[in-house]
């Protein structure tokens, strides 16, 4: 949902950081997007492409997206497991004393920029 405004936030943050470092262009934008973040990767990529086409700093930028699996930790048996369909029951002990530990991220991790030497 809201992939266009999310792409806009990414573009603004990347532009700001690139300008701060006197970049001539941005080559890569590295994101970490959780499976359970509610963000559609394809839509986000499409929207970012639309925005970057009109931005001199971003028009050659490649999006590199790490999709982070939805995972939880079981307090009772101290095991980690993959979460399917948001159901957080521990598959090992079948308990419910669990906590989501990954998969809801929506992070701008780093960028690769070109600068004039």
């Amino acid at each position, binding site marked *: *949902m*809201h992939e266009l405004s*999310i792409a806009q*936030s*990414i573009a603004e*943050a990347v532009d700001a*950081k690139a300008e701060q*470092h006197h970049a*001539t262009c941005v*080559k890569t934008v590295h*994101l970490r997007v959780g499976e*359970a973040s*509610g963000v559609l990767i394809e839509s986000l990529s499409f929207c970012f492409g639309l925005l970057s086409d009109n931005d001199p700093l971003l028009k050659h930028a490649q999006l590199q997206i790490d999709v982070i699996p939805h995972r939880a930790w079981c307090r009772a048996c101290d095991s980690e497991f993959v979460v399917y*369909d*948001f*159901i*957080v*029951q521990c598959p090992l002990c079948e308990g*419910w*004393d*669990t906590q*989501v530990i990954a998969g809801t991220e*929506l*992070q*701008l*991790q*780093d*960028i*690769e*920029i*070109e*600068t*004039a*030497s």
Partner: protein
Amino acid sequence: MCLVVLFSALFSDRRMSEGVTTVTKVTIAQNILAANDTVAAEIRDILVPRHIRILNLMSSPGAGKTTLLEQTIERLAAKIAVGVIEGDIETTADAERIEQTGAETVQINTRGACHLEAHMVRDALAMMDLKQVELLFIENVGNLVCPSGWQLGEDMRVVVTSTPEGDDKPVKYPEMFAAAQVLVINKTDLLPYIDYNVHKAKRLALAVNPQLKIFELSCRTGEGLDDWCIWLHDYVQLHKRGYVPVD
């Protein structure tokens, strides 16, 4: 994981010369919605020192958020000062209803946005007299999807679901239910007339969020409202005494 982080920190200015240009990796490592989160933190800086508890109330359109607030304020007004920020796409209808209860009220009209964002709440707070407020409700735009993505500086998220919506909502809209601390099942008075299995709804809600506190009530008949209001009252009072409720 630690090794990767350390590598990144040490070599965040790694340079590879390529002719007359240099390629540099610049670490940012921030939430994409950081701008909203920053404003949400500002909101907490305003409200927490005043010992005001903040609840973000979310639901589908028509689940009964505004009616729940009317009934809650009526029961709590003598003991706890309540303030309300109303969020709707259009009209001041809900704020006008809440004003009748005597609570300090501000209406936000998003004019098309399907959820509240922190900057809207910050601007609304500037219009409120917070001196008399102990418990602030933010009634979000009716929407079971988008509001969960935006922090508003709240202490707790309360999701309201109503029996006519169906008992499978927690697994059809899991993000909303997984991100909340409290679930209110409203319109229990309609149970004799519709196919709604309360046990199933609670089981599915707890399957995506085992720590959910669940209330079943009817704003029409008043059933269950006392338990909800007693819990709210205790939540505010315990906070004022410095306790963090475990329940």
